[in-house]
Protein backbone atom coordinates (compact mmCIF):
# COMPACT_ATOMS: atom_id res chain seq x y z
CA UNK A 1 0.00 0.00 0.00
CA UNK A 2 1.52 3.18 -1.09
CA UNK A 3 -0.47 5.93 0.39
CA UNK A 4 1.72 8.65 -0.83
CA UNK A 5 2.01 7.32 -4.24
CA UNK A 6 1.88 9.77 -6.92
CA UNK A 7 -0.42 9.41 -9.78
CA UNK A 8 2.19 9.98 -12.32
CA UNK A 9 0.86 10.80 -15.67
CA UNK A 10 2.69 8.21 -17.50
CA UNK A 11 2.03 7.54 -21.04
CA UNK A 12 0.84 4.14 -20.18
CA UNK A 13 -1.68 2.37 -22.13
CA UNK A 14 -4.51 2.59 -19.75
CA UNK A 15 -6.73 5.36 -20.91
CA UNK A 16 -8.76 5.47 -17.84
CA UNK A 17 -7.39 5.26 -14.47
CA UNK A 18 -3.83 6.30 -14.24
CA UNK A 19 -3.56 5.49 -10.64
CA UNK A 20 -1.02 2.89 -9.84
CA UNK A 21 -2.20 -0.49 -9.06
CA UNK A 22 -0.84 -0.26 -5.63
CA UNK A 23 -3.92 1.51 -4.49
CA UNK A 24 -5.85 -0.76 -2.35
CA UNK A 25 -8.51 1.71 -1.42
CA UNK A 26 -11.21 0.20 -3.42
CA UNK A 27 -13.74 2.50 -2.02
CA UNK A 28 -11.67 5.38 -3.23
CA UNK A 29 -11.95 4.11 -6.74
CA UNK A 30 -15.57 3.52 -6.16
CA UNK A 31 -15.93 7.12 -5.17
CA UNK A 32 -14.21 8.26 -8.27
CA UNK A 33 -16.27 6.20 -10.60
CA UNK A 34 -19.56 6.91 -9.01
CA UNK A 35 -19.24 10.58 -8.49
CA UNK A 36 -20.82 13.02 -10.83
CA UNK A 37 -19.07 14.38 -13.83
CA UNK A 38 -17.87 17.86 -13.70
CA UNK A 39 -18.60 20.45 -16.34
CA UNK A 40 -15.77 21.94 -18.14
CA UNK A 41 -16.39 25.55 -17.29
CA UNK A 42 -13.70 26.91 -15.17
CA UNK A 43 -14.63 28.25 -11.83
CA UNK A 44 -14.22 31.94 -11.48
CA UNK A 45 -13.53 31.84 -7.82
CA UNK A 46 -10.83 29.29 -8.05
CA UNK A 47 -7.42 30.80 -8.24
CA UNK A 48 -6.35 31.22 -11.79
CA UNK A 49 -4.28 28.44 -13.08
CA UNK A 50 -0.77 29.31 -13.85
CA UNK A 51 -0.27 28.98 -17.51
CA UNK A 52 2.72 26.78 -17.44
CA UNK A 53 1.37 24.18 -15.17
CA UNK A 54 -0.74 22.65 -17.81
CA UNK A 55 2.28 21.59 -19.68
CA UNK A 56 4.47 20.93 -16.75
CA UNK A 57 2.27 18.52 -15.03
CA UNK A 58 4.72 15.71 -14.64
CA UNK A 59 7.34 17.79 -12.97
CA UNK A 60 4.76 19.58 -11.05
CA UNK A 61 3.42 16.42 -9.72
CA UNK A 62 6.68 15.28 -8.42
CA UNK A 63 7.31 18.49 -6.69
CA UNK A 64 3.94 18.66 -5.24
CA UNK A 65 3.68 15.29 -3.78
CA UNK A 66 7.14 15.10 -2.52
CA UNK A 67 6.79 18.29 -0.67
CA UNK A 68 3.47 17.63 0.74
CA UNK A 69 3.12 13.95 0.99
CA UNK A 70 -0.36 13.96 -0.26
CA UNK A 71 -2.31 12.14 -2.76
CA UNK A 72 -3.24 14.07 -5.76
CA UNK A 73 -5.82 12.70 -7.96
CA UNK A 74 -5.95 13.09 -11.61
CA UNK A 75 -9.44 12.98 -12.88
CA UNK A 76 -10.31 10.15 -15.09
CA UNK A 77 -12.07 9.83 -18.38
CA UNK A 78 -9.95 10.91 -21.17
CA UNK A 79 -10.29 13.60 -23.66
CA UNK A 80 -13.35 15.32 -22.54
CA UNK A 81 -14.04 17.27 -19.50
CA UNK A 82 -15.91 14.81 -17.48
CA UNK A 83 -13.62 14.92 -14.62
CA UNK A 84 -14.82 12.91 -11.79
CA UNK A 85 -14.81 14.55 -8.49
CA UNK A 86 -15.15 13.29 -5.06
CA UNK A 87 -16.16 14.67 -1.84
CA UNK A 88 -14.96 13.96 1.60
CA UNK A 89 -12.22 11.71 0.58
CA UNK A 90 -9.68 11.03 3.23
CA UNK A 91 -6.80 8.70 3.15
CA UNK A 92 -5.10 9.48 6.33
CA UNK A 93 -2.81 12.20 5.14
CA UNK A 94 -3.10 15.84 5.91
CA UNK A 95 -6.30 17.32 4.70
CA UNK A 96 -5.91 20.24 2.46
CA UNK A 97 -8.10 23.17 3.17
CA UNK A 98 -9.07 25.90 0.87
CA UNK A 99 -6.91 28.78 1.94
CA UNK A 100 -8.79 31.69 3.34
CA UNK A 101 -6.23 34.37 2.97
CA UNK A 102 -3.17 34.89 0.99
CA UNK A 103 -1.21 32.52 3.11
CA UNK A 104 -2.10 29.46 1.32
CA UNK A 105 -2.43 31.14 -1.95
CA UNK A 106 0.79 29.78 -3.26
CA UNK A 107 -0.15 26.33 -2.22
CA UNK A 108 -3.50 26.64 -3.83
CA UNK A 109 -2.08 27.88 -7.01
CA UNK A 110 0.29 25.06 -7.28
CA UNK A 111 -2.25 22.58 -6.22
CA UNK A 112 -5.44 23.56 -7.85
CA UNK A 113 -4.20 24.57 -11.18
CA UNK A 114 -4.93 23.08 -14.43
CA UNK A 115 -5.71 19.53 -14.08
CA UNK A 116 -5.98 17.52 -17.09
CA UNK A 117 -7.52 14.36 -17.97
CA UNK A 118 -5.47 11.34 -18.34
CA UNK A 119 -5.73 11.70 -22.00
CA UNK A 120 -4.85 15.30 -21.63
CA UNK A 121 -1.50 14.51 -20.23
CA UNK A 122 -0.68 12.53 -23.22
CA UNK A 123 -2.26 15.02 -25.50
CA UNK A 124 -1.42 18.39 -24.08
CA UNK A 125 -3.73 20.19 -26.38
CA UNK A 126 -6.24 20.49 -23.61
CA UNK A 127 -7.33 24.06 -23.90
CA UNK A 128 -9.74 24.30 -21.01
CA UNK A 129 -7.92 24.25 -17.73
CA UNK A 130 -9.86 22.63 -15.02
CA UNK A 131 -9.45 22.70 -11.33
CA UNK A 132 -8.07 19.52 -10.02
CA UNK A 133 -10.06 17.95 -7.31
CA UNK A 134 -8.27 18.48 -4.11
CA UNK A 135 -8.51 16.01 -1.43
CA UNK A 136 -11.43 16.75 0.79
CA UNK A 137 -12.69 19.51 -1.45
CA UNK A 138 -15.20 19.42 -4.20
CA UNK A 139 -14.61 21.33 -7.33
CA UNK A 140 -18.17 21.53 -8.39
CA UNK A 141 -18.78 25.21 -9.08
CA UNK A 142 -21.98 25.11 -7.15
CA UNK A 143 -20.36 23.72 -4.08
CA UNK A 144 -17.48 26.11 -4.29
CA UNK A 145 -19.87 28.97 -4.53
CA UNK A 146 -21.77 27.51 -1.64
CA UNK A 147 -18.61 27.35 0.34
CA UNK A 148 -17.79 30.96 -0.43
CA UNK A 149 -21.26 32.00 0.52
CA UNK A 150 -20.98 30.19 3.80
CA UNK A 151 -17.68 31.83 4.49
CA UNK A 152 -19.11 35.25 3.79
CA UNK A 153 -21.97 34.60 6.14
CA UNK A 154 -19.64 33.36 8.84
CA UNK A 155 -17.48 36.44 8.47
CA UNK A 156 -20.40 38.73 8.93
CA UNK A 157 -21.68 36.73 11.83
CA UNK A 158 -18.36 37.26 13.51
CA UNK A 159 -18.61 41.01 13.11
CA UNK A 160 -22.15 40.91 14.41
CA UNK A 161 -20.99 38.94 17.37
CA UNK A 162 -18.87 41.83 18.52
CA UNK A 163 -21.78 44.22 18.30
CA UNK A 164 -24.31 42.26 20.22
CA UNK A 165 -23.74 42.00 23.94
CA UNK A 166 -23.61 38.48 25.23
CA UNK A 167 -22.32 37.41 21.91
CA UNK A 168 -20.04 34.70 23.07
CA UNK A 169 -22.15 31.90 21.76
CA UNK A 170 -20.35 29.57 19.49
CA UNK A 171 -23.44 28.07 18.01
CA UNK A 172 -24.68 29.83 14.95
CA UNK A 173 -28.32 29.26 15.72
CA UNK A 174 -28.13 30.60 19.23
CA UNK A 175 -26.09 33.54 17.99
CA UNK A 176 -28.80 34.35 15.49
CA UNK A 177 -31.40 34.14 18.21
CA UNK A 178 -29.35 36.50 20.30
CA UNK A 179 -29.11 38.95 17.43
CA UNK A 180 -32.84 38.82 16.83
CA UNK A 181 -33.57 39.42 20.48
CA UNK A 182 -31.22 42.35 20.56
CA UNK A 183 -32.80 43.99 17.53
CA UNK A 184 -36.22 43.50 19.05
CA UNK A 185 -35.00 44.97 22.29
CA UNK A 186 -33.58 48.04 20.59
CA UNK A 187 -36.78 48.63 18.70
CA UNK A 188 -38.72 48.30 21.91
CA UNK A 189 -36.43 50.81 23.55
CA UNK A 190 -37.11 53.31 20.79
CA UNK A 191 -40.81 52.74 21.19
CA UNK A 192 -40.74 53.17 24.94
CA UNK A 193 -38.60 56.25 24.78
CA UNK A 194 -40.83 57.80 22.19
CA UNK A 195 -43.90 57.05 24.20
CA UNK A 196 -43.30 58.11 27.70
CA UNK A 197 -41.53 61.33 28.29
CA UNK A 198 -40.71 62.43 24.83
CA UNK A 199 -44.25 63.60 24.35
CA UNK A 200 -43.74 66.11 27.08
CA UNK A 201 -40.24 66.75 25.95
CA UNK A 202 -41.43 67.42 22.45
CA UNK A 203 -43.96 69.85 23.69
CA UNK A 204 -41.35 71.58 25.81
CA UNK A 205 -39.00 71.86 22.88
CA UNK A 206 -41.78 73.16 20.71
CA UNK A 207 -42.56 75.72 23.35
CA UNK A 208 -39.03 76.90 23.33
CA UNK A 209 -38.64 76.80 19.60
CA UNK A 210 -41.79 78.76 19.08
CA UNK A 211 -40.89 81.06 21.87
CA UNK A 212 -44.48 81.13 22.85
CA UNK A 213 -45.41 82.33 26.25
CA UNK A 214 -48.65 80.48 26.21
CA UNK A 215 -48.65 77.16 27.87
CA UNK A 216 -48.96 74.08 25.80
CA UNK A 217 -50.28 71.04 27.43
CA UNK A 218 -47.15 70.02 29.20
CA UNK A 219 -48.49 66.77 30.36
CA UNK A 220 -45.67 64.82 31.80
CA UNK A 221 -42.82 67.24 31.96
CA UNK A 222 -44.48 69.62 34.25
CA UNK A 223 -46.14 67.11 36.41
CA UNK A 224 -45.20 68.80 39.57
CA UNK A 225 -46.58 72.07 38.38
CA UNK A 226 -49.96 70.61 38.10
CA UNK A 227 -52.40 72.28 40.32
CA UNK A 228 -54.69 70.26 42.42
CA UNK A 229 -57.49 70.98 40.02
CA UNK A 230 -55.59 69.41 37.20
CA UNK A 231 -54.68 66.49 39.41
CA UNK A 232 -58.28 66.01 40.29
CA UNK A 233 -59.20 66.14 36.66
CA UNK A 234 -56.69 63.45 35.90
CA UNK A 235 -58.01 61.43 38.73
CA UNK A 236 -61.55 61.65 37.53
CA UNK A 237 -60.54 60.83 34.02
CA UNK A 238 -58.68 57.78 35.14
CA UNK A 239 -61.52 56.62 37.32
CA UNK A 240 -63.88 56.97 34.43
CA UNK A 241 -61.62 55.02 32.16
CA UNK A 242 -61.07 52.35 34.71
CA UNK A 243 -64.72 51.58 34.83
CA UNK A 244 -64.84 50.85 31.15
CA UNK A 245 -61.55 49.22 30.42
CA UNK A 246 -58.44 48.87 32.46
CA UNK A 247 -56.24 48.87 29.40
CA UNK A 248 -57.32 52.27 28.21
CA UNK A 249 -56.91 53.64 31.70
CA UNK A 250 -53.36 52.36 31.80
CA UNK A 251 -52.70 53.81 28.39
CA UNK A 252 -54.00 57.17 29.41
CA UNK A 253 -51.86 57.18 32.49
CA UNK A 254 -48.87 56.01 30.55
CA UNK A 255 -49.33 58.84 28.15
CA UNK A 256 -49.11 61.19 31.04
CA UNK A 257 -46.05 59.48 32.35
CA UNK A 258 -47.82 57.96 35.29
CA UNK A 259 -48.28 54.43 36.40
CA UNK A 260 -50.54 52.64 38.80
CA UNK A 261 -49.33 50.76 41.77
CA UNK A 262 -50.72 49.65 45.09
CA UNK A 263 -50.31 52.07 47.94
CA UNK A 264 -48.23 49.73 50.03
CA UNK A 265 -45.63 49.46 47.31
CA UNK A 266 -45.67 53.18 46.72
CA UNK A 267 -45.08 54.01 50.34
CA UNK A 268 -42.27 51.51 50.55
CA UNK A 269 -40.58 52.97 47.55
CA UNK A 270 -41.10 56.51 48.64
CA UNK A 271 -39.44 55.85 51.96
CA UNK A 272 -36.60 54.14 50.19
CA UNK A 273 -36.26 57.02 47.78
CA UNK A 274 -36.25 59.62 50.49
CA UNK A 275 -33.62 57.70 52.33
CA UNK A 276 -31.19 57.59 49.47
CA UNK A 277 -29.78 60.75 48.02
CA UNK A 278 -31.07 60.69 44.51
CA UNK A 279 -32.77 57.39 44.38
CA UNK A 280 -32.16 54.31 42.36
CA UNK A 281 -32.08 54.76 38.63
CA UNK A 282 -35.22 52.82 38.24
CA UNK A 283 -37.17 54.13 41.13
CA UNK A 284 -40.07 56.25 40.06
CA UNK A 285 -40.04 59.88 40.62
CA UNK A 286 -42.73 60.47 43.15
CA UNK A 287 -43.44 63.98 42.18
CA UNK A 288 -47.07 63.33 41.58
CA UNK A 289 -49.00 60.95 43.66
CA UNK A 290 -52.68 60.75 43.42
CA UNK A 291 -54.78 58.37 45.30
CA UNK A 292 -57.52 56.81 43.36
CA UNK A 293 -60.02 54.81 45.26
CA UNK A 294 -60.74 51.68 43.43
CA UNK A 295 -64.07 50.01 43.37
CA UNK A 296 -63.14 46.85 45.13
CA UNK A 297 -61.55 48.49 48.09
CA UNK A 298 -57.86 48.53 47.31
CA UNK A 299 -56.46 51.94 46.69
CA UNK A 300 -54.16 52.67 43.84
CA UNK A 301 -51.65 55.37 43.53
CA UNK A 302 -50.67 56.98 40.30
CA UNK A 303 -46.97 57.55 40.33
CA UNK A 304 -44.77 59.35 37.91
CA UNK A 305 -42.36 57.11 36.24
CA UNK A 306 -38.86 57.73 35.01
CA UNK A 307 -38.51 55.93 31.73
CA UNK A 308 -35.06 54.54 32.02
CA UNK A 309 -34.71 51.32 30.23
CA UNK A 310 -31.54 49.43 30.63
CA UNK A 311 -30.66 46.02 29.45
CA UNK A 312 -29.86 43.74 32.33
Amino acid at each position, binding site marked *: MNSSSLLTPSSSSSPHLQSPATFDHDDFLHHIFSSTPWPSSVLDEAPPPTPDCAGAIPGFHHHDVDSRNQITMIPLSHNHPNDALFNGFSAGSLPFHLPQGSGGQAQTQSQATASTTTGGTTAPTQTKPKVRARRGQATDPHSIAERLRRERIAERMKSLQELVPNGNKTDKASM*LDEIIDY*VKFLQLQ*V*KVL*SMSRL*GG*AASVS*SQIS*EDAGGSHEN*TSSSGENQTTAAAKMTEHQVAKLMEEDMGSAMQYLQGKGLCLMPISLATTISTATCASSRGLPLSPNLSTTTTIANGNGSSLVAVKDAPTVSKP
Partner: protein
Amino acid sequence: MSFIKVLILKFSSLRTQTMASSDKTINTDVPEKDVFAIHFLQSLSNLTTQNPFNSPDTTNYRARKIKKAAYVSMAKAAGGSSRLWSRALLGRAAKENNKIVRFARRKRKVTWKISSKRRSDQRAPEATDRLRNLVPGGGTMETSKLMEETAHYIKCLSMQVKVMQCLVDGLSPK
Protein backbone atom coordinates in the same frame (compact mmCIF):
# COMPACT_ATOMS: atom_id res chain seq x y z
CA MET B 1 -33.36 77.76 19.32
CA SER B 2 -30.50 78.35 21.66
CA PHE B 3 -31.84 75.65 23.90
CA ILE B 4 -31.50 73.19 21.11
CA LYS B 5 -27.95 74.29 20.58
CA VAL B 6 -27.24 73.76 24.24
CA LEU B 7 -28.59 70.28 23.95
CA ILE B 8 -26.42 69.54 20.98
CA LEU B 9 -23.40 70.80 22.85
CA LYS B 10 -24.31 68.48 25.63
CA PHE B 11 -24.32 65.64 23.18
CA SER B 12 -20.88 66.42 21.93
CA SER B 13 -19.63 66.41 25.45
CA LEU B 14 -21.22 63.09 26.10
CA ARG B 15 -19.91 61.73 22.87
CA THR B 16 -18.54 58.28 23.01
CA GLN B 17 -15.69 57.27 20.81
CA THR B 18 -16.40 56.76 17.22
CA MET B 19 -17.69 53.43 16.27
CA ALA B 20 -14.79 52.40 14.19
CA SER B 21 -15.53 49.72 11.76
CA SER B 22 -13.86 46.73 13.19
CA ASP B 23 -14.00 44.82 10.01
CA LYS B 24 -11.69 46.01 7.36
CA THR B 25 -13.45 44.41 4.51
CA ILE B 26 -16.97 45.34 5.51
CA ASN B 27 -17.64 48.99 5.99
CA THR B 28 -20.33 49.65 8.55
CA ASP B 29 -19.46 53.09 9.68
CA VAL B 30 -22.07 55.09 11.48
CA PRO B 31 -22.05 58.85 11.87
CA GLU B 32 -21.65 60.53 15.19
CA LYS B 33 -24.25 61.06 17.82
CA ASP B 34 -24.81 64.71 17.03
CA VAL B 35 -25.78 63.94 13.47
CA PHE B 36 -28.53 61.75 14.81
CA ALA B 37 -29.41 64.36 17.38
CA ILE B 38 -29.74 67.15 14.89
CA HIS B 39 -31.94 65.14 12.58
CA PHE B 40 -34.12 63.93 15.37
CA LEU B 41 -34.62 67.33 16.91
CA GLN B 42 -35.44 68.81 13.57
CA SER B 43 -38.02 66.14 12.94
CA LEU B 44 -39.46 66.66 16.40
CA SER B 45 -39.84 70.36 15.96
CA ASN B 46 -41.45 69.77 12.58
CA LEU B 47 -43.82 67.38 14.23
CA THR B 48 -44.90 69.76 16.91
CA THR B 49 -45.33 72.70 14.61
CA GLN B 50 -47.62 70.68 12.41
CA ASN B 51 -50.21 69.70 14.93
CA PRO B 52 -50.08 71.08 18.40
CA PHE B 53 -50.61 68.58 21.12
CA ASN B 54 -53.77 69.42 22.88
CA SER B 55 -55.75 66.44 23.90
CA PRO B 56 -54.33 63.62 25.95
CA ASP B 57 -56.59 61.14 24.22
CA THR B 58 -54.31 61.09 21.29
CA THR B 59 -51.32 59.92 23.24
CA ASN B 60 -51.09 56.75 21.31
CA TYR B 61 -51.28 58.59 18.07
CA ARG B 62 -48.68 61.01 19.27
CA ALA B 63 -46.38 58.27 20.42
CA ARG B 64 -46.65 56.56 17.10
CA LYS B 65 -45.85 59.73 15.26
CA ILE B 66 -42.85 60.30 17.43
CA LYS B 67 -41.68 56.78 16.84
CA LYS B 68 -42.07 57.19 13.13
CA ALA B 69 -40.21 60.49 13.26
CA ALA B 70 -37.47 58.78 15.20
CA TYR B 71 -37.07 56.07 12.61
CA VAL B 72 -37.20 58.43 9.69
CA SER B 73 -34.66 60.74 11.23
CA MET B 74 -32.50 57.75 11.99
CA ALA B 75 -32.70 56.59 8.42
CA LYS B 76 -31.81 60.03 7.17
CA ALA B 77 -28.97 60.47 9.58
CA ALA B 78 -27.49 57.11 8.82
CA GLY B 79 -26.72 57.94 5.25
CA GLY B 80 -30.04 58.32 3.56
CA SER B 81 -29.72 56.17 0.52
CA SER B 82 -26.52 54.29 0.89
CA ARG B 83 -28.01 51.53 2.95
CA LEU B 84 -30.78 49.24 1.95
CA TRP B 85 -32.65 49.31 5.20
CA SER B 86 -32.73 53.07 5.38
CA ARG B 87 -34.16 53.24 1.91
CA ALA B 88 -36.80 50.71 2.80
CA LEU B 89 -37.68 52.61 5.96
CA LEU B 90 -37.99 55.90 4.15
CA GLY B 91 -40.03 54.29 1.42
CA ARG B 92 -42.34 52.75 3.94
CA ALA B 93 -42.81 56.02 5.79
CA ALA B 94 -43.41 57.91 2.60
CA LYS B 95 -46.01 55.40 1.56
CA GLU B 96 -47.84 56.00 4.79
CA ASN B 97 -47.85 59.68 4.05
CA ASN B 98 -49.06 58.94 0.54
CA LYS B 99 -45.93 60.38 -0.89
CA ILE B 100 -43.90 58.85 -3.62
CA VAL B 101 -40.23 58.76 -2.94
CA ARG B 102 -37.74 57.96 -5.60
CA PHE B 103 -34.24 56.88 -4.93
CA ALA B 104 -31.43 56.94 -7.39
CA ARG B 105 -30.86 53.36 -8.19
CA ARG B 106 -27.30 52.43 -7.65
CA LYS B 107 -25.54 50.19 -10.03
CA ARG B 108 -25.51 46.91 -8.24
CA LYS B 109 -22.98 44.42 -9.29
CA VAL B 110 -24.44 41.09 -10.12
CA THR B 111 -24.03 38.75 -7.26
CA TRP B 112 -24.28 35.08 -7.57
CA LYS B 113 -27.54 34.40 -5.90
CA ILE B 114 -27.66 30.85 -4.77
CA SER B 115 -31.26 29.98 -4.48
CA SER B 116 -31.84 28.22 -1.26
CA LYS B 117 -34.74 26.37 -2.71
CA ARG B 118 -32.27 24.03 -4.19
CA ARG B 119 -31.80 22.34 -0.89
CA SER B 120 -34.52 21.15 1.33
CA ASP B 121 -35.06 24.46 2.98
CA GLN B 122 -38.66 24.23 4.00
CA ARG B 123 -37.97 24.69 7.65
CA ALA B 124 -40.16 26.41 10.16
CA PRO B 125 -39.66 30.22 10.44
CA GLU B 126 -35.96 30.08 10.58
CA ALA B 127 -33.79 32.57 12.35
CA THR B 128 -32.83 34.31 9.13
CA ASP B 129 -36.47 34.68 8.16
CA ARG B 130 -37.23 36.22 11.50
CA LEU B 131 -34.34 38.58 11.02
CA ARG B 132 -35.67 39.50 7.63
CA ASN B 133 -38.95 40.46 9.19
CA LEU B 134 -37.28 42.61 11.78
CA VAL B 135 -34.83 44.53 9.66
CA PRO B 136 -36.61 46.84 7.25
CA GLY B 137 -36.09 45.97 3.64
CA GLY B 138 -34.84 42.54 4.46
CA GLY B 139 -37.31 40.63 2.44
CA THR B 140 -35.31 40.21 -0.70
CA MET B 141 -31.71 40.04 0.22
CA GLU B 142 -29.01 37.51 0.28
CA THR B 143 -28.14 36.23 3.67
CA SER B 144 -24.71 37.78 3.68
CA LYS B 145 -26.15 41.13 2.68
CA LEU B 146 -28.76 40.73 5.36
CA MET B 147 -26.06 40.27 7.94
CA GLU B 148 -24.32 43.41 6.80
CA GLU B 149 -27.50 45.41 6.95
CA THR B 150 -28.27 44.02 10.36
CA ALA B 151 -24.92 45.12 11.69
CA HIS B 152 -25.38 48.65 10.43
CA TYR B 153 -28.96 48.71 11.62
CA ILE B 154 -27.97 47.65 15.10
CA LYS B 155 -25.33 50.34 15.29
CA CYS B 156 -27.75 53.02 14.17
CA LEU B 157 -30.48 51.82 16.48
CA SER B 158 -28.22 51.89 19.50
CA MET B 159 -27.07 55.37 18.53
CA GLN B 160 -30.65 56.52 18.20
CA VAL B 161 -31.51 55.05 21.59
CA LYS B 162 -28.61 56.88 23.18
CA VAL B 163 -29.70 60.13 21.59
CA MET B 164 -33.26 59.74 22.76
CA GLN B 165 -32.16 58.80 26.23
CA CYS B 166 -29.96 61.88 26.45
CA LEU B 167 -32.81 63.99 25.21
CA VAL B 168 -35.18 62.62 27.77
CA ASP B 169 -32.68 63.06 30.52
CA GLY B 170 -31.84 66.57 29.42
CA LEU B 171 -35.37 67.74 29.05
CA SER B 172 -36.93 66.08 32.04
CA PRO B 173 -37.39 68.39 34.96
CA LYS B 174 -35.59 67.68 38.19
